[in-house]
């Protein structure tokens, strides 16, 4: 069976972290979400993978190339305009002959998730799970093991079982989906909605991992879930006097200087310079080429590639995108906060600072919990920042 992975979307609600990468390429545990998806498929023997790419497709192609490095054979189908999942699938149809598995490339899954669908399914089938916010997804109603109805983003609560966007489909359904696209239906759920009364579509429950990131602060939780490796894997240099506890991975060419304290699960990439006397606490990912200066404290955060964090800084439940630079004394404690995305308000329990790529933050800046700084912003010395800053804002 071939697998089709939908990876063309931008993920506009995840801005600023999707300014220059598609949603599937957001790194958690130092690997793009899509790499976990490909890994889960390959672990189940699904090596022939069609990636449907579109927004910033070069990022994906550059990373995965022809797939050999990941044990897969990857072909690319290009969806020029992101017109929905059904359309994305129709773009890939030229590569599919028999049955196929369809997977969303932007959900963190593991091998068990794929195995659940693969082993229990009678094609066609949809993999379902329970969600606390069903209104964001397609809600599935099940009779026995058959899907009796499917409602995309219901306005009123009709149940908490949702479609994971993972399907096993046969040629008949693929043809129906193409017909649906021709009729102007955007999503796979929209097409299935009309069909489930006539065609037997089975619903398969999963016990495996399935985590979605919709909003920027979700990256913190997805990252924590991704850091599930065991043991210590240290390729870089750890100077004497530094403490490494728990499950920690440190990449080659990285130096952890004396007096630093790292408590896993933590992953540190290649070519970083950390310390002396830096504290990194659980569920933190640090990318490649990151410099963290002395006396800085980081907990439960995602620090992406080539970030520079000055001395005496405090970051908790925070995300710093590629190339972000903070001078000395950035204070970004976490706490309850209200955040706003697309005119929608959210009450968050515990969040710190979210910073887009290449933003530069001056010395002694204090940020309120839930602050979102766009990409390419400039924040002057000694400023207090709260709320949302647009891309390329300048604050003095």
């Amino acid at each position, binding site marked *: 069976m071939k697998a089709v992975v939908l990876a063309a979307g931008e993920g506009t609600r995840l801005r600023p972290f999707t300014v220059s990468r598609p949603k599937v390429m957001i790194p958690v545990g130092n690997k793009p979400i899509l790499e976990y998806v490909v890994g889960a498929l390959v672990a189940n023997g699904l090596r022939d993978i069609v990636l449907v790419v579109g927004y910033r497709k070069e990022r994906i192609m550059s990373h995965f*190339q022809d797939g050999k490095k990941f044990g897969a054979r990857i072909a690319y189908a290009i969806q020029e305009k992101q017109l929905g999942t059904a359309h994305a699938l129709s773009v890939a149809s030229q590569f599919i002959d028999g049955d196929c598995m369809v997977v969303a490339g932007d959900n963190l899954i593991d091998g068990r998730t794929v195995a659940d669908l693969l082993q229990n399914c009678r094609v066609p089938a949809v993999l379902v799970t329970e969600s606390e916010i069903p209104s964001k997804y397609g809600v599935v109603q099940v009779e026995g093991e058959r899907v009796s109805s499917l409602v995309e983003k219901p306005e009123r609560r009709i149940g908490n079982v949702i479609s994971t966007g993972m399907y096993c489909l046969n040629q008949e359904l693929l043809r129906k989906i193409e017909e649906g696209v021709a009729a102007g239906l955007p999503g796979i759920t929209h097409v299935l909605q009309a069909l489930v009364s006539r065609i037997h579509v089975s619903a398969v429950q999963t016990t495996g991992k399935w985590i979605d990131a919709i909003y920027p602060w979700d990256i913190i939780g997805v990252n924590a879930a991704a850091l599930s490796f065991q043991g210590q894997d240290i390729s870089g240099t750890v100077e004497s006097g530094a403490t490494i506890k728990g499950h920690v991975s440190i990449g080659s060419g990285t130096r952890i200087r004396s007096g630093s304290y790292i408590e896993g699960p933590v992953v540190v990439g290649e070519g970083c310079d950390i310390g002396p006397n830096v504290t990194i606490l659980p569920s933190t990912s640090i990318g490649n080429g990151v*410099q963290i200066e002395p006396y800085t404290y980081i907990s439960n955060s995602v620090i992406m590639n*080539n970030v520079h964090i000055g001395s005496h800084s405090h970051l908790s439940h925070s995300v710093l995108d590629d190339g972000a*630079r903070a001078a000395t004394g950035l204070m970004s404690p976490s706490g309850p906060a209200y955040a706003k995305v697309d005119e929608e308000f959210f009450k968050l329990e515990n969040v710190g600072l979210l910073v887009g790529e290449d933003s530069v933050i001056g010395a002694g800046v204090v940020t309120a919990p839930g602050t979102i700084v766009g990409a390419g912003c400039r924040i002057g010395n000694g400023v207090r920042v709260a709320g949302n800053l647009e891309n390329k804002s300048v604050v003095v």
Partner: protein
Amino acid sequence: MCGIVGYTGSRQAVDILLDALKRLEYRGYDSAGIAVCGKGVQIFKDKGEISSLEKSLPRIHGTVGISHTRWATCGKPSKENAHPFADCTGRFALVHNGIIENHRQLRQKLESEGHRFTSETDTEVLVHLLEANFNGDVHSALRESLKEVKGTYAIAVASSDSNEIVAARMENPLVIGLGVGENLVASDVPALLNYTNKILHVMDGETAVISPDSVAIYDESGAEVKRNPSTVTWTIEDAEKGGFEHFMLKEILEGPSSIHNSLLGSLDGVEEGEFLQDVGFKSVKIVACGSSFHAAMIGKYVIENLSHIPTTLELASEYRYSHGTKESPLVILVTQSGETADTLAAAREARRRGCRTLAITNVVGSTITREVDEVFYTRAGPEIGVAATKTFLTQLVALSLLAMRMGFARRQLDHERLRILKAELRSMPRYVEAVIDGAQQIEGSVEMLAGARDAFFIGRNINFPTMLEGALKLKEISYIHAEGYAAGELKHGPLALLDSRTPVVAACIKDHTYDKMLSNVSEVAARDSPVIGIGYEDDMDLRSIVDRFIGIPKVDPIFSPIPITVVLQLLAYHTAKRKGCSIDKPRNLAKSVTVE
């Protein structure tokens, strides 16, 4: 440049020879040929592409054979001049890379002895020489023949009555691939990767006899050499396009990870002296060709700025014929492939003059690594596109690290400045990625260049050579006549050529030459030339006086050539694409130039 493949085993040789030969296509060629030993030696060859040769082939049976792609040096591209060549009796087929310097004398001699030549090439003398020296054993005949030959070569010979391939090497790459029940020989590793990753390197002066079950290598005296095979770690997938339309774009996009890899481990080495342990030399000379020479020119500025060690430059093809000076500088040789003939010769010349030598190269185990005292690997990964892209960036990184090492060890560079420079280099992958992410901003400039017949690239100081490289990139893949010029030299001639149809690309970085650059830009604009200005992204002054503005991140000026080069690579790529040019295989050009 030319490519050689030989196969002996149990499979049909044709399929393997053609497939392996295609892996060498990227090196550039004008004709291709194949010889298979079955019933006698059957030779098929023609001017043009491998695929058209393939179409014209009848079914040929045989499990031993050789094939060749030719890039004309001696005799024009034609069917007659394509390899393989047969002797008068049709017993042998021979392919050759390199140049036989005394081919005229040999040819005269052989013709007077009655040998009939069919081509204008130097190669053909080899096969007739072999025939003349043949006394029942091909290997000893080849060894005898090579004694009479002056020049450089990689040779493979197949014979009608044997399943052995005999090969020889002198200053041209040759590798043997070890399979199970089959063995291959080729001029370059990528040709072999589909069949094996176990490789035996053949050295200068050595000959080899390859049969399906055994490989024997002999030194110049004829004694057998024992050598352990090495395993190639990069695989064919590294060398394939993976969804991209062109290798060049794929490779530009690999710039950030290439820089990351080339920094790994080397950043700490600056203080710890993991490279250039001893810095007791009085001066530096950098020797290179082509794009590597432009990297060298930038390197001169960086070394002199950071270490104050006097640095000179020389083209490899000139250095070998120049005169030595009393002082012996540290000679740095820059070559991506490690096989560039002129640079190899320069390395030998430098050692003959008693200079310490250091090579900056991308290819582990390449010939230059055996010719020098110290090697600095750029670790950019294989580069297939003829136009150097990511490897050029890593050469700049390598030269910067060497300069920082010299400056630090000679106490010209204090800790504070070194720390800032290291932080800048550590961030470099992101700076480059940011340029790539912002590629849509070059759109209007591409438009401007694609419609032009001529273009000028101007810069000052460290970005003068950057612009030479930018002009070279545009020339080589988009066939637009482009000239790099030091901005201060414009008024000494080129201004006369400027008009509204000649765009000028100008690099204006806020260093001590900034004001001068701005006046040069105004000077150019006053001649109605459309100006594309490249500067720091927040540079409003520049933005206001140019027709198209391209912003780069605010890196330290000393490293500004790196992001600016990426802009220029993208400009050249998109311009060539807009014009519909053959980007990965530009006409008349080859990747690594193994002829002199």
